[in-house]
């Protein structure tokens, strides 16, 4: 199967400029600099690539929103990989940082941004070191700086490390953080494309999205869109974790059946396919899919959405039949409570209530009404906050009750779990 973002990671010293160049690196940049910015944006539009961070917004369209005015523009790479279950970008940062850097220089040139930042979650200290070393190499080789490849184009790039706040993965929270503030998301509109970092037009893309750009430029948008399926083009890395025999990051074409991903790539379910209970298909915030759905669903944006969940970041978390669904979701609710930034009351208060109620049901102290109370609290969060963290907290709870209501009922009626 065609690989794009991981195609070089098997090479020894793949993180170095020498190896990346010998594998064809920076040829896309050379080509891009002969094109106009608009040509590049059109090519990315043609590819159909959608944002790989979770929201799935078409990247080319996002770039085209950058106004052609005289204000300083910025390109930001979101490497604040923090959605539980997600660890796909980490391997790009530590194994192929130059491919990301090349994608960023091309993107910066296309939208006329002369300055870029890679916002890396703070805990990825070693990964940030790797990226910084690659940036230093790229400056020394003339790929970065005030005269990129001698073509008179300017692009400066720097690493900015986060400080351990999930909410900074939200793009405006990230911008606030980059400006030296608490990472509390901004009201939108205005969108970052108009008023972003330092008030300037700003493109924010996920690591995987930007790392796909060199191949889109080299091989063309039409080539990219021939991979995957309609409206979910190209390849995607799925981080498969939990109860599979071979957990790992697997780059495959979008549209692959979930069952194939789990059985043929991830080594199968621990204890066999029939031991599968459910799959959280796109990171902690995406509603859990039952085994029945997992039998047939394909891994693309529309199919997963139709199944009532989200492709999200592509973090596939596999639960076998030993898992207490109430306990699993209670753990996630605790996470969202901890990570709520506190600025919107529905999220600040609601995530606390969700966590408390989930915890008391899990501990066998819940009452029957608690199940509907969870749905009510979730309903009072969803759509009522500045950013999507509140929705992210509500969706797994609502999804789990929808799919496994009998387990919640068993917990409140018997004061214990039905599986353990």
């Amino acid at each position, binding site marked *: 199967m065609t690989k794009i973002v991981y195609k070089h990671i098997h090479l020894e010293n793949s993180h170095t400029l020498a190896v990346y160049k010998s594998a064809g690196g920076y040829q896309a940049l050379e080509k891009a600099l002969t094109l106009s910015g608009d040509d590049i944006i059109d090519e990315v539009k043609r590819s159909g690539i959608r944002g790989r961070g979770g929201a799935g917004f078409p990247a080319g369209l996002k770039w085209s929103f950058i106004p052609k005015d005289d204000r*300083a523009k910025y390109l930001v790479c979101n490497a604040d*990989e*923090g*959605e*539980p*279950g*997600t*660890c796909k970008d*980490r391997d790009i940062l530590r194994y192929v940082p130059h491919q990301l850097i090349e994608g960023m220089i091309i993107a910066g040139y296309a939208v006329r941004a002369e*300055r870029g*930042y890679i916002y890396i*979650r*703070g*805990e*990825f*200290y*070693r990964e940030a070191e790797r990226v910084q070393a690659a940036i230093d190499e790229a400056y020394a080789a003339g790929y970065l700086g005030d005269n990129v490849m001698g073509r008179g184009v300017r692009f400066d790039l*720097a*690493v*900015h*490390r*986060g*400080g*351990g*706040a*999930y909410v900074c993965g939200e793009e405006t929270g990230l911008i606030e*953080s*980059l*400006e*030296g*503030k*608490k*990472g509390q998301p901004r009201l939108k509109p205005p969108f970052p494309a108009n008023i972003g970092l*330092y008030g300037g037009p700003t493109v924010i893309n996920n690591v995987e999205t930007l790392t796909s750009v060199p191949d889109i430029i080299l091989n063309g948008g039409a080539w990219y869109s021939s991979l995957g399926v309609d409206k979910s083009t190209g390849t995607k890395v799925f*981080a*498969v*974790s*939990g*109860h599979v025999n071979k*957990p*790992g*990051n697997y780059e495959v074409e979008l549209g692959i059946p979930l069952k194939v991903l789990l059985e043929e790539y991830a080594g199968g379910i621990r204890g066999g396919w029939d031991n599968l209970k459910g799959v*959280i298909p796109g990171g*902690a915030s995406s509603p859990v899919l039952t085994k029945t759905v997992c039998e047939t669903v394909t891994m693309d944006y529309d199919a997963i959405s139709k199944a009532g969940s989200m492709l999200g970041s592509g*973090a596939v*978390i*596999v*639960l076998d039949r030993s*898992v207490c669904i109430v306990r*699993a979701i209670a*753990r*996630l609710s605790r*996470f969202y409570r*901890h*990570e709520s*930034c506190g600025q919107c009351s529905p999220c600040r208060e609601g995530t606390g209530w969700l966590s408390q109620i989930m915890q008391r049901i899990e501990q066998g102290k819940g009452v029957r009404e608690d199940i509907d109370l969870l749905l009510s609290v979730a309903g009072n969060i969803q759509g009522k906050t500045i950013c999507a963290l509140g929705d992210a907290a509500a969706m797994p709870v609502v999804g789990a009750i929808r799919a496994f209501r009998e387990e919640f009922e068993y917990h409140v009626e018997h004061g214990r779990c039905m599986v353990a």
Partner: protein
Amino acid sequence: MSELQKSSSGVPPRFSEEAMRQVEVIFQRYPADRRESAVMPVLHLAQREFGGWLSQEALDYVATIVGMPPIRVYEVATFYTMYNLKPVGKYHIQVCTNISCWLCDSDSIAQALRNKLQLSFGESSSDGRFTLSEVECLGACINAPMLQINDDYYENLTPAKVSEIIDQLP
């Protein structure tokens, strides 16, 4: 907001010459009129320079370096979990217990650490060697269960491996 703790030494914190050179490198990453962007990296640097945590004096010092009102530095330092506002051990052991690690039995890893170190989550050993913390997802889910000690990740753990790792720390 968590309480800020005063330094016990009474000696005002100061960056070494080498650290000041690093501060200059940090400033160069941001536009000249956007120095406040440097507050997070300078706080990270201060934490490394000043023994792994940030006293109120250290935050005040960072405020003078970056040119921000101290209250704005306090806001940032208290918002992000990686800034330690009280002393931590020489080895800060952070165990992930979020979903992917939990599915792969992080409970046994946490238990092994509690037994080995005789510490609960949030506690430090009296000799100043260890602090044990429970943390949220660290983004190494395919290699669960895992933990972080200072700058490094330790992955695909078993209770026996954890014990070995602790024994081998210098």
